[in-house]
């Protein structure tokens, strides 16, 4: 580096090799931001029942900004390699009819994901993606069937009874267990439970509300339902 000229040349080549790469990285990052913005907008578009917590609505200024950011994304779509993509699609070794059917289904699935919609057989796969509120009291309430006998109270959990390794009384699969968990406490589910209990030779389960500690799981109270 004794020669200032060669040092300047080295610096110049370094800058030239470095800057375009940084620019490309910046462009990629910018592109990710623009796509994320578009998906954020589309997933906010339709009302959904998923969330039990009311999400804050973005301000008008924010929405305007997000809509504005769609413009460069749409503008850049001009330069997307549409022809190359079409050629790649056409070159797939899948018969045309099959390719068309499968592509249409994948497209529909993408639309459902983008708009956070669900219409069987398409789904945004949003189960357990909802935002919920944790009770401030630190305790949870849950309804459950219980069996009372010999001064003992036994919780009858549907999903436990649906598990072949842990079931104590019944012989269900997890789908049936899920259904009975879902419809528990309804007259129809009570009748099914009573019938199953009779077959298993145990007293008919009754409904109760359990209150338990969220941290330790310790049961605080168990209140049987009063049926009219």
């Amino acid at each position, binding site marked *: 580096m004794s020669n200032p000229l060669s040092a300047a040349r080295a610096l110049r080549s370094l800058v030239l090799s470095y800057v375009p790469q940084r620019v490309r990285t910046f462009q990629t990052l910018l592109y990710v931001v623009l796509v994320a913005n578009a998906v954020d907008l589309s997933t906010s578009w339709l009302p959904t029942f998923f969330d039990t917590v009311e999400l804050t609505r973005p301000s008008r200024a924010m929405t305007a900004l997000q809509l504005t950011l769609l413009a460069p994304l749409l503008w850049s779509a001009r330069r997307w390699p549409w022809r190359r993509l079409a050629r790649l699609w056409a070159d797939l070794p899948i018969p045309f009819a099959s390719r068309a059917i*499968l592509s249409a289904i994948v497209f529909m699935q993408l639309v459902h994901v983008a708009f956070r919609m669900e219409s069987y057989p398409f789904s945004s796969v949003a189960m357990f993606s909802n935002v919920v509120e944790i009770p401030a009291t630190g305790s949870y309430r849950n309804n459950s069937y219980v069996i009372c006998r010999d001064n003992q109270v036994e919780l009858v*959990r549907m999903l436990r009874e649906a598990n072949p390794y842990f079931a104590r009384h019944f012989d269900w699969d997890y789908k049936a267990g899920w259904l009975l968990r879902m419809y528990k406490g309804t007259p129809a589910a009570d009748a099914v439970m009573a019938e199953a209990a009779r077959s298993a030779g145990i007293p008919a389960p009754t409904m109760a509300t359990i209150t338990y500690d969220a941290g330790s799981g310790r049961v605080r109270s168990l209140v049987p339902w009063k049926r009219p």
Partner: protein
Amino acid sequence: MNDWIGARCRLPGSALHLAIIRIVFAMHALTVLTSPSLPLIRRLSDEPLLSTHTMLPPALEQLVIRRLDLIIAVGVIAAVFVIVGLATRTASWILLAVFLSTQNYFFRFSLFHDDWLYFNFYLLVLCLSRSADRLALDALIRPRPAAASPAYRWPVEVMIGWFSLVYISAGIAKLMPLRKGVLWLGGSSLQHFAVHFYFDSPIYWLLGHPLFDYSTRWPFCVGAVATVLIELSAGLLLVTRTADAWIVGAIILLHVGVALLGIPGFVQISILSSLLFLRPRSSVTAASSGSSGHIARSPTRRSARRGA
């Protein structure tokens, strides 16, 4: 980009691999169709849940409700035909139609997303592919000339693509909209999930108490971030399969964790889906010699091991 899904579709496939997938998936469809849950729904409710929507026409829904036993019987027969590979093409379409309609019935009354999310598409791909060229009565009764080897590969790769898409969708659904995703990553939803299903969790059945203090938030925050990372990592399966064992293993572990917290059903689906990731060793020479290929470890891995 030589390993992206489109390029992989052109690689040689294995008729045996596809046949095994056909048999195992049809056996799974058989267990789903014979589940006691479908007749149980009729006893529990008459009206679908208001929060569910379907694209299937109401007339078809009503037909399933009225003729459920008959439809299940037809589906069971079709599944057996697909398993043994008899009249496979026709039986596959019938099985798909029955599976699609009965799972619609199950979803509309249970709001449970399990088998249908994966197997509607898997069964459709089997309908469109030559899955009965091996391990099938059809191949014995009416032997057909072996197809070009990619004909056995693209169905597998397309199913892998769908598997990947399901998990990418799940990851996006957790993160988007962003203002919701930030809250979700905080772990409160996972915490609620663990506490809400506490009495349904094998952890409680085994230990009688939680694994740790469930009122502590940070483990759930870590779990939420890990969940999203695992789900989004499935996107790599679209561009390369070099890490598929790690990704699929992580997904299975994720479902084991979910099952331990109280929601079963996905472990077996992910294990069955992992069958797709067996690496077929079927070369052009195998195809030209009349053999339809067989399953083995990846030549790439083997050569890598030799090299080591």
